[in-house]
């Protein structure tokens, strides 16, 4: 039923456009019914997009090749989970997912934050409407997923690298992150439009920003795991523009989540926070533009792309309009207080922000430079890993150190004697760890050694923070240690949830440093019975087998893995041949040692006609800390996101929402 899908999207476009016009007019003239009607239009737009999405999902599940999109991205033999995940396997479906998530977020934001400040929310609705109008316009007029054709016997299949379980979870997570950044942006613009630049927009968007940031972070880690297991080159992050596209808004959002605390505590950085929200949202649009416009292939494929120029135009509009609005409201955003000392908590937040934004902008420059050079000089100059690695170390290592320093310094100002006393323990611990690591041979990589030493420092400060907090809580309440500990977290979820997230970043730093600075690899051509030694592993090649799965021919080498004289594993690296897609994929074999955190990573590079194989073995030390970091990151984010009844009540009193009559329902 492609007609139903098309009709639903046309209805969605009309509703989004109505939300813009009615929303702006209702807010401007302070007409309650019109504003409420605009809010309802956003809710109805979500329902309408949901109908269109269900139509596409049903077509994918039924292999209805009368839908061009289904024919281009699936085949009859494709397993059902991948058929359904093909929803976002192509450009048109991705845009539909953007629209679905956007209208879903808009509905939730409008319904949950109705009472955040009516004057604010009525201005938020048309801003959300503008974004929804743009995306619905794209899927209705420019890149519809409901184009039809004479039904083929079979479809073209799905790109082999997308045929991974991570494909089912990684893109939706990223989209929840990218699109989620629309909500804080809309509230920030709503605050500027309404002239209500108090903290309500921050209070209303705190959880939305955190949720989007969490999804974006988890999405990137899942993407890294996907690259690690599926792409088959032994690494997990290659500074690919598509990967950078997700990292940039995440960095901007991270800066915002920190600087917003300075605004809450000190009433400072109001303009900066607005800029960060705009940057994060613009970068999320830019990320979608990068991945969907074809601009990464060449400037020519961008100009030939149906959506590229539209996207670029919309990004320019968003940046210009939001900056103009910000300049217009500048007098309202002046802070009354100033930074009292360069050695204070707020100062460390400022340093953290400068480093995060600097890292974000250097990545942006690295991503855009090849595009600009191709546009200006006619040839694309590639910006390679050394550029990114240099800036990642230059900004990332100080950021890691600041993560340990910041929480220990008091707000307003700190004296030298206090600093000496507080930092003595963690510094001694970190130096001891550094010396121990040098003794163990970790001095071969200076950045790795610095990363480990800083990680030890941050870990010590986190443990110290929890220990001191628990002790203070015990002194006050007389509770047992476990009770005091849980009560400490429950009473200040943002602070201690944040520390858990910091612990996740420490694990991430350890994982990245270990796997990138201390990894070992060896390549060899082996015949059956021949072996290869790599550190304390001996790998013996036994032979190759071929099997047939639902939609691929699977070719696997058998490798016996010995350590300390005994066989500890049998591994099967190989390749999959997808006849429908006419693609061959690397299927690596990984053996994780959960005690040491290291991976033995095997790649079959080529199976030769004479029974020999060319294969590569890599030892990635501590790489599993990265995936563990993902779990800890989610735990910390959830603690921070968890509603705090005391905080809610305090805010309700501040904004006079307690004694009000209930909101009439429409």
């Amino acid at each position: 039923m492609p007609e139903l899908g098309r009709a639903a999207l046309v209805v969605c476009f009309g509703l989004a456009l109505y939300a813009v016009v009615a929303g702006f007019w209702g807010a401007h003239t302070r007409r309650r019914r019109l504003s409420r009607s605009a809010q309802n239009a956003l809710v109805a737009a979500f329902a309408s997009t949901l109908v269109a999405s269900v139509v596409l999902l049903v077509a994918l599940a039924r292999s209805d090749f009368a839908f061009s999109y289904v024919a281009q991205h699936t085949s009859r033999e494709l397993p059902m989970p991948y058929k359904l995940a093909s929803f976002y396997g192509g450009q048109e479906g991705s845009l539909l997912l953007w629209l679905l998530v956007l209208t879903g977020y808009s509905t939730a934001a409008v319904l949950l934050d109705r009472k955040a400040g009516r004057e604010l929310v009525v201005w938020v609705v048309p801003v959300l409407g503008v974004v929804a109008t743009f995306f619905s316009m794209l899927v209705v007029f420019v890149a519809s997923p409901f184009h039809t054709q004479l039904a083929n016997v079979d479809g073209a299949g799905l790109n082999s690298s997308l045929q991974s379980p991570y494909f089912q979870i990684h893109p939706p997570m990223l989209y929840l992150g990218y699109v989620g950044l629309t909500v804080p942006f809309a509230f920030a613009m709503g605050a500027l439009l309404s002239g209500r630049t108090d903290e309500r927009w921050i209070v209303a968007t705190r959880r939305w920003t955190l949720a989007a940031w969490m999804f974006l972070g988890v999405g990137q880690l899942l993407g890294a795991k996907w690259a690690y297991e599926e792409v088959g080159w032994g690494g997990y992050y290659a500074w690919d523009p598509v990967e950078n596209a997700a990292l940039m808004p995440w960095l901007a959002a991270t800066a915002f989540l920190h600087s917003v605390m300075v605004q809450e505590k000190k009433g400072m950085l109001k303009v900066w926070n607005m800029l960060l929200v705009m940057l994060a949202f613009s970068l999320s649009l830019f990320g979608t533009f990068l991945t969907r416009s074809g601009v990464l292939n060449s400037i020519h494929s961008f100009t030939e792309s149906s959506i590229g120029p539209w996207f670029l135009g919309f990004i320019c509009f968003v940046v210009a309009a939001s900056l103009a609005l910000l300049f217009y409201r500048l007098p309202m955003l002046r802070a009354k207080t100033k930074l009292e000392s360069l050695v204070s908590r707020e100062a460390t937040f400022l340093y953290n922000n400068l480093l995060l934004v600097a890292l974000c902008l250097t990545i942006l420059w690295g991503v855009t430079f090849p595009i600009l050079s191709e546009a200006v000089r006619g040839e694309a100059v590639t910006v390679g890993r050394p550029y990114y690695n240099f800036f990642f170390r230059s900004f990332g290592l100080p950021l890691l150190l600041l993560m340990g320093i910041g929480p220990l310094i008091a707000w307003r100002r700190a004296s030298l004697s206090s600093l000496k006393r507080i930092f003595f323990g963690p510094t001694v611990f970190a130096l001891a760890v550094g010396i121990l690591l040098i003794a163990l041979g970790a001095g071969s990589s200076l950045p790795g050694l610095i990363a480990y030493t800083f990680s030890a420092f941050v870990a010590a400060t986190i443990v110290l923070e929890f220990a001191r907090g628990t002790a203070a809580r015990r002194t006050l309440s007389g509770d047992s240690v476990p009770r005091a500990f849980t009560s400490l977290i429950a009473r200040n979820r943002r602070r201690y949830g944040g520390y858990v997230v910091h612990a996740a970043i420490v694990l991430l730093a350890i994982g990245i440093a270990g796997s990138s600075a201390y990894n070992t690899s060896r390549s060899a051509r082996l015949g059956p019975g021949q072996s290869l030694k790599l550190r304390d592993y001996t790998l013996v090649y036994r032979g190759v087998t071929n099997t047939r799965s639902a939609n691929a021919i699977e070719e696997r080498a058998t490798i016996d893995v010995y350590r300390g004289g005994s066989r500890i594993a049998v591994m099967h690296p190989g390749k999959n041949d997808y006849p429908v897609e006419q693609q061959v994929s690397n299927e690596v074999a990984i053996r994780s040692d959960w005690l040491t955190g290291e991976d033995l990573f095997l790649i079959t590079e080529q199976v030769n006609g004479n029974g020999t194989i060319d294969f590569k073995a890599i030892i990635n030390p501590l790489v599993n800390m990265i995936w563990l970091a993902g779990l800890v990151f989610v735990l910390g984010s959830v603690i921070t996101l968890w509603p705090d009844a005391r905080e809610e009540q305090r805010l309700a009193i501040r904004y006079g929402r307690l004694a009000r009559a209930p909101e009439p329902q429409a």
Partner: protein
Amino acid sequence: MLTAALVIGALLAVAAVWFVARPFLGREPDVLPAEPPPERLALEEERDRALAALKDLEFDHRTGKISDDDYRGLVGDLRRDAAEALKALDRGTPRADARVPD
């Protein structure tokens, strides 16, 4: 199939129009309720900020991040800030929830 799709599409459009028009059928006043004046909100935020700063200082002192000397140097300023914020609120307009009709 085409007819069914068109009928479902038309029903969707009608349902959307009804839902969007619903607020116009209600009897609530058609004017957005007045909100507390920005100055008042600014004072409330100022008060909360001052009280939170005092609370943070107490906690930092208790957890040993701030020495007794530093604590004594800072607590006076913060108490003064909090007192001024509370006085400013007292001098200001009445509470928003008591004043604003809904």
